[in-house]
């Protein structure tokens, strides 16, 4: 049973620090062998999870949700009211999206999402998080100098656009609703979904392009 003893955790970490191989591949291999031999997971199940998050669950899900919001005003109002309920239309609810909130970019406001304390992310709707999202640089700077961070992504936010940074400190997760670009009149939701990028749903991209 878990001890929930902080001092014991610190002591075990120090022991492991001096006794484990430094190669992460070997550490994961040890963990996998222990878990399989204890009957906690089958190796084929690990393969299944990898395939699920490589082929089936990813930012294409979020893109479909955004495209629907752009083309269906009723869906958009439900999404803004309760995103956890709204994404059930697609069967996209699940891991880390039990308390999902959609926040909308406008001409006057931009939104950007971070988790400074760990790397919380809405997995079931955006898939695996990008490496930069989990970096110490993004986690430390997104709340303090977000405009400089955006500039590193090539986004130069005008002074008259307010920026709101959402630090995911609890179990709420966020998806940014980017603005629909000009030049997409008459596009159907499938075509629109093709231009919605992962970064635009995290808020490190602002102006989507009508290409595709």
């Amino acid at each position: 049973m878990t001890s929930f003893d902080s001092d014991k955790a610190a002591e075990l970490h120090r022991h492991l620090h001096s006794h484990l191989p430094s190669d992460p591949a070997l550490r994961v291999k040890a963990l996998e062998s222990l878990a399989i031999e204890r009957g906690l997971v089958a190796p084929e199940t690990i393969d299944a999870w990898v395939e699920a998050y490589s082929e089936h669950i990813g930012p294409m899900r979020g893109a479909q949700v955004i495209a629907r919001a752009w083309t269906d005003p009723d869906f958009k109002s439900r999404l803004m009211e309760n995103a956890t309920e709204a994404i059930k239309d697609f069967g996209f609810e699940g891991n880390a999206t039990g308390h999902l909130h959609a926040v909308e970019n406008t001409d006057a406001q931009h939104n950007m999402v971070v988790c400074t304390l760990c790397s919380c992310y809405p997995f079931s709707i955006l898939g695996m998080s990008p490496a930069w999202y989990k970096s110490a640089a993004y986690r430390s700077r997104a709340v303090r100098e977000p405009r400089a961070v955006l500039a590193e992504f090539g986004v130069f936010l005008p002074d008259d656009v307010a920026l709101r940074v959402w630090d995911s400190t609890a179990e709420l997760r966020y998806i940014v609703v980017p603005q629909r670009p000009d030049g997409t009149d008459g596009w159907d939701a499938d075509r629109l979904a093709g231009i919605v990028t992962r970064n635009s749903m995290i808020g490190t991209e602002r102006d989507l392009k009508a290409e595709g």
Partner: protein
Amino acid sequence: MDGIHDLGGKQGHGPVPVDTGDAPFSHDWERRMWGLAREGLVPSMTIDWFRHGLEMMVPADYLTQSYFEKWATNYLMIFADDGIASLQEIEAGHVADPAPRAAAKTTQEVVEQVRTGCTDFSLPPDAPAKFSIGDKVLTLDHGTAPHTRLPGYARGRHGTIIAHHGAHLLPDEGAKGRHVGDHLYTISFTARELWGPDAHPADTVTLELWESYLVPPR
């Protein structure tokens, strides 16, 4: 806790590595780690014990190990703590007395498991909320030991409540294995309140904070 994980506002970490590509994983061991973690593996732990375990890592390891590497290290600590494997077994990479193999799941089954595994962290409140939307509040200027979700950069600061979510599990207690509800609010802080007069006047940072982290403004 005031650990190395509390990165918000820290300086000196350099540019954001923006060109990390779109691939969800860069190494096979990352794929294996992700798949393992999706199965939970340790029924007796809580999400906050997992997070607290990461916080208790050797600080230099926390900063130098990548995301999935930290997960592997932390899971091994959690296995040892729980007794799933002894330290000797962890170092050997094998258990002395293997159990029967777990049943295999298909991709279709795990995709469905994602959908049905939508976790609700809200609890029925045991007391009325002390604050309402629009209220000004002050955050505590100290954290609670050992685990808290009140980051250092937002302590002792004035903010405005912009949403109330009812009661949610309090992580400070969750890290001790206890299920206690506390009212949860989204609080907006001006960038200038957090970072001083050089910050952009229109910018804000919002955090979800529990009622026990808050007091009325002074």
